């Protein structure tokens, strides 16, 4: 880990090490970013890897896939580290986008394959009515609900993460909860 730390930190501009507080202060509305910005990708990994894997798991429903997507998000971040002002928010958006892209591809694969997807199998295997119902929602609704009720983000921050308007987030949350109620309380 130490060697990896040095490798990643070595790629980072020295100046970035001292402006962390200023960059963190600029992250309006992001509760996590109110603390000092991580000094290196390795710092960010130590702080956010497990929460991000769990966030991704709640959206895609598979620990293996979640880890894969989050690791890829970290690897992509490395390329943009010097220019990323709000690393935590950037990472979360990257993870949510990766999850949604994964679900889109999965939907396409489902269209071409006769076999049910691994994710569907996984979710059906674990009896949890509400969580299973969540898995039936369109990915954007699912992501909005997870960001709101797991990450406790504001509608404005969810809008940033999903790349949509705050009004759309409100609608996604409302419809998502409505759909869950329909499934759980038919």
């Amino acid at each position, binding site marked *: 880990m130490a060697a*990896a730390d040095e*490798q*990643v930190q070595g790629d980072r501009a020295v100046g970035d090490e001292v402006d962390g507080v200023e960059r963190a202060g600029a992250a309006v509305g992001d509760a996590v970013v109110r603390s000092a910005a991580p000094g290196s990708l*390795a710092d960010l*990994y130590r702080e956010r*890897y*497990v929460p991000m*894997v*769990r966030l991704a*798991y*709640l959206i895609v429903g598979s*620990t293996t896939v*979640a*880890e894969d997507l*989050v*690791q*890829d998000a*970290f*690897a*992509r971040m*490395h*390329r*943009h580290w010097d220019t*990323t002002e709000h690393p935590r928010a*950037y990472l979360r*958006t*990257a993870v949510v*986008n*990766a999850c*949604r*892209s994964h*679900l*889109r591809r*999965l*939907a*396409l*694969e*489902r*269209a*071409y*394959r*006769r076999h049910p997807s691994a994710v569907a199998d996984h979710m059906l295997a674990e009896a*949890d009515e*509400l*969580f299973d119902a*969540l898995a*039936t929602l*369109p*990915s*954007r609704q699912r992501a909005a*609900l*997870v960001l709101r*009720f*797991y990450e406790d983000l504001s509608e404005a921050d969810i809008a940033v993460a999903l*790349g949509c308007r705050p009004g759309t987030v409100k609608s996604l949350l409302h419809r998502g*909860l409505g759909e*869950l*109620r329909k499934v*759980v*309380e038919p």
Partner: protein
Amino acid sequence: MVDEEQLRETLHRRAETVEPSPNGWALVTRRIERRQRRTRTTTLSLAGGFAFAAVVVAVALVTHAIPETDQNVAAGGGRTPAFSPTTTVPFPAGPPTTVVPFDALPGQPTPGGPDDVVPPLGPTTIPGAGPDTGLTTSGFQTGTIYPETAAELERIQAQVDEGHQPWWIDPSMVASSYLSNRGLTTADAGAPQSIGEEGALRYTADGVGGWVSVGRLTSGSIYYVEGSRSDRIVQLRVARQGERLAVEVMAATGGKVVVRTKRPGSDWNPGPTQAVAAGKLTSLTVEGAAGADLIVQVRHEGDDGRVGLSEERMGAEVTSFEYEGLHDGSQLGPAWLGPVRLGMSLAEAARAAGVATITDRGGSCTTLRPAGAPAGVGFVSTAGDDRVDVITVGAPGALTGAGIGVGNTVAEVRTAYPGIEERLTLDGDGQLVYAPDDPVLGGFEMVFGMVDGRVASIWSGSAGLSSTDEICA
């Protein structure tokens, strides 16, 4: 009762069960190293590519002089201007490209029962009349459009056998000569690799793409042109109706269509002209076609001034023809891929595709796929009514009318579709959404799925498709 607190509790409880593997950081750093290696390799490849291109250009400049000389020493000259000794034949400049029909790709089994396989549509002949092979005593087919007669073919073959006009054994140059003869002066056609005895060459002329089908009798004989089609002419059907030819045309862009016919070896007869709208089927009628061996030319003159040409020969016994089936270079539009259009039933789509197809059911979708097509190419019915409402392309091959396909960059898409709606992350992931500003196609959109700044997939469907995350959930 599902309340917010219950959902919050469920999510946190489920999340707590997830314990990521302890070697996550090692896997992240390995990915970073892989990406860095890939970047270096790409840079080296590009540098190598430029060097190779420079060599190719240098060689081409030297070798291009040879055929020009050979053309000029040709004796006699043909009936058409392109056969004359002074004709300049454009040289191919594009990358080598050949057509491989979906159902001809090797190693692609066709799962499903016989009901899943729809035989391709071909020319229809009068019962009992037999196919229009038109074989002469020397074996040349007269079902060609350039040269048009067996006598002309034999004459040119004799010249080539004596060492003149060797470019007739180069299919790309024969295709270019044909296009030049038809007035498409800036044509260039793909290199001759993999053509063999017959095949089709991709070309661009004045910015419009298309295909020229070529063939030859044996490995030593000259090539001739059997037909052509333009990307701008999306669909074409021609049928004899008594004394007339009934022509149905669909063009990718607005403009006008001119239909001309000629008997082989004669001059063109003037034909009808009609304005066409993008994506709309238009009918025209050509008089005086009873029982004649005709070359039928459909010329599309777009509103942008660009010309597309589709040409076929219709032997005396042939009662109708329509475009060949879907192929891996079929044009993708907001509402079609090649001859298959949104709104068709799956059965209609299979017939229009003209190649063997597989029907696949998954999730809430039924998908029709050309047998052997690359993964991701499909016609999807999401509404349960067995009508195509989404077309997907996830592999290189099919291009949009603006020349964009899987693999193009964000910048290239932006250039091809100025003002396209962008929904991208800093990584270049996300979507680019093109909504045509056209009264006919206004209800459709094309969604370019971007990964790492390149087109990874293209979906065509009704407006709003881009906000649909899971079309088959």
